């Protein structure tokens, strides 16, 4: 019952005029950002985070979470209309969304995507509400060894489940952690890693500089490279009657929606997995379980419903570890977590005790954001189609300007703008060479939390690393982390053994 009264309080906060208007604004912005090819929630949240200093933290996080949500809905629009995923999370939506659009059923695909997103979002928010408090209560008993073990677990998921080159993934994690150590040593107060004696490094490398560099500038350079070809826009006729008919036809997809939502939610909780693999897995499961799997890829509505329900559910799922444990479940939540630090909130379970208004206001606003995202999405389909026609050569310079100003505002230091440009260009080149970038962003956010946890644990144990393995909770978390680290090795041995036999 406690959850219920807290949630009701949360709704009072979410319905405050400022917060409600921010939910609506966030959803609209998110829908547009999500619909733009190459831009997803992470880009939107990274670029717009510096603009939230105007409002209190609760309103700021509500706005950014609404962008996150909106972008998940919006990603489907360009997947269906252009055949180009609006964001990586909507890749699976193109498989069947595009064929449906080419058959003249774009409206059916768009309505299916919006409805599935709504169902996925709603189911996952309900699960989130139920899990949040018990998980935070468990996490309250955590000491530095457990916190550090959790960080190790977060990174191990990238190795075990990431699917990228392991050496490159590890490199990305290490470099992010090293960059997080730049500035003043937290214990001795001595300056460290002050490159070239530049004073700008004394305040450390702000995570936003790396995030905007990689997800703003780097991503734009990447998109400019890949999207210079011509794209064919599908036609969509939308009318109220057609939408109602489409909704009626969707009843047969209810089972796929629910299953994909559950799958997406649990995959979303894992830091390395998140919405993209969640939606691909949901697509795979829907295809395996279908009576007519051969129609998948040729325009089956379930092929749109499954990934869309899953990616929305995953976006909510990734917020659970962010709020309860202080470990982000996705790059977008990593940036939200960094935002919490800027707003002066300590991430982790104590937020539930110290700032219940923040947590429950956010949770309630997710319910509200879902409803608005559905209504705005269906109501404004023609507007989104119009925006998709906007040439990239107009959008790109505006985003670059936003990145430059966004990189300057938090510290008001031009040093950070130059650093952001370097990160953007190097990040773009590294991406071309298959270096995963998400682990580096996660690492720079988690670094300032991981290092004190490690050092405090070691001081407590007089340098004995067994402290991480002997305590029951940290020991179990470490065991899972070790299994995840070893997973690629087991796969390799298995594959070699198979080849040999």
């Amino acid at each position, binding site marked *: 019952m406690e959850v219920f009264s807290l949630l009701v309080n949360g709704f009072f906060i979410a319905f405050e005029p400022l917060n409600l208007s921010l939910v609506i604004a966030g959803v609209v912005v998110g829908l547009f950002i999500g619909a733009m090819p190459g831009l997803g929630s992470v880009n939107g949240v990274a670029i717009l985070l510096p*603009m939230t*200093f*105007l409002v209190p933290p609760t309103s700021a996080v509500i706005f950014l979470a609404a962008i996150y949500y909106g972008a998940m809905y919006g990603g489907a629009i360009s997947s269906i209309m252009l055949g180009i995923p609006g964001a990586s999370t909507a890749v699976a939506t193109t498989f069947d969304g595009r064929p449906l659009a080419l058959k003249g059923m774009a409206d059916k695909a768009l309505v299916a995507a919006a409805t599935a997103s709504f169902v996925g979002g709603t189911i996952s928010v309900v699960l989130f509400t139920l899990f949040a408090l018990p998980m935070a209560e468990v996490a309250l008993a955590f000491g530095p060894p457990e916190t550090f073990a959790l960080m190790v677990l977060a990174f191990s998921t990238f190795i075990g489940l990431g699917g990228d*080159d392991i*050496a*490159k993934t*590890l*490199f990305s994690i*290490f*470099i992010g*952690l*090293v960059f997080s*150590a730049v500035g003043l*040593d937290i*214990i*001795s107060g*001595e300056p*460290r*890693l002050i*490159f070239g004696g530049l004073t700008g490094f004394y305040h450390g490398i702000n995570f936003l500089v790396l995030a905007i560099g990689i997800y703003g*500038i780097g991503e734009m*350079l990447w998109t*400019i*490279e890949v999207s*210079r070809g011509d794209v064919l826009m599908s036609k969509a006729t939308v009318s109220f009657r057609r939408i109602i008919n489409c909704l009626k036809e969707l009843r047969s997809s209810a089972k796929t929606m629910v299953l994909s939502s559950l799958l997406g939610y649990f995959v979303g909780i894992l830091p390395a997995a998140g919405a993209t693999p969640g939606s691909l897995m949901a697509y795979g499961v829907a295809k395996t379980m279908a009576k007519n799997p051969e129609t998948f890829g040729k325009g089956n509505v379930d092929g749109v419903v499954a990934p869309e329900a899953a990616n929305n559910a995953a976006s909510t799922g990734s917020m659970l570890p962010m709020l309860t444990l202080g470990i982000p479940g996705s790059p977008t939540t990593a940036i939200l977590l960094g935002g919490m630090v800027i707003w002066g909130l300590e991430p982790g379970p104590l937020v539930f005790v110290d700032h219940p208004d923040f947590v429950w206001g956010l949770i309630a606003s997710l319910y509200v954001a879902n409803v608005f995202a559905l209504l705005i999405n269906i109501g404004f389909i023609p507007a989104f189609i119009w925006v998709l026609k906007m*040439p990239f*050569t*107009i959008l*790109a*310079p*505006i985003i*670059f*300007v936003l990145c*430059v*100003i966004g990189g*300057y*505002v938090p510290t*008001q230091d*031009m040093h950070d*703008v*130059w650093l952001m*440009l370097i990160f953007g*260009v190097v990040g773009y*080149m*590294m991406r*071309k*060479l*298959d*270096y995963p970038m998400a682990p580096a962003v996660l690492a720079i956010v988690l670094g300032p939390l991981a*290092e004190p946890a*490690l*050092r*405090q644990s*070691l*001081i407590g144990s007089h*340098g004995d690393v067994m402290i991480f393995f002997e305590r029951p909770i940290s020991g179990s978390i470490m065991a899972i982390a070790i299994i995840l680290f070893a997973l690629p090795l087991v796969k390799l041995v298995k594959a070699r053994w198979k080849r040999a036999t």
Partner: protein
Amino acid sequence: MALVMAVFSLYLMWKSAELPIGWIPGKGPGGGAFPFWLSLGMLACCVAIILRWIARASPPSRSTEPFMTPETFKWFLLVAGSLTAMIALIHVIGVYGAVPLFLIFYVRFLGRHSWTTAGALAICTPVATFFFFEIALKKTLPKGFTEPLFYPLYDIFL
């Protein structure tokens, strides 16, 4: 790239070692320990990446495609170059001089849109930026030598 990063890792290790990297009795690990051992990890990863490259075991090392086609390289230089120029110009003529120039260059010359579109964007973007950041958020942006021109505006709006 891995070679460059390997050299960078060595530099980071050397830089971290300016602070103690070992165990200090009573104080725990030294201030340089965390970045030092992580940089060592970076170096190990770079060595692994280089070895896999030599053995042609990773997809990029087997790819026969050029890293950048001449066309891509030209675009990359133009976009990254104009961005660098804009940031450098911010130091001299400030955001409100550099941003319109960048927008005109990008929209008119790279995007080949009309002068009307380029001009409208070059005027509206700085105006919106001024009201949002300077007036609403009270975050002053760098203005270079154009600073005195803004005093009357501050008098009106702040």
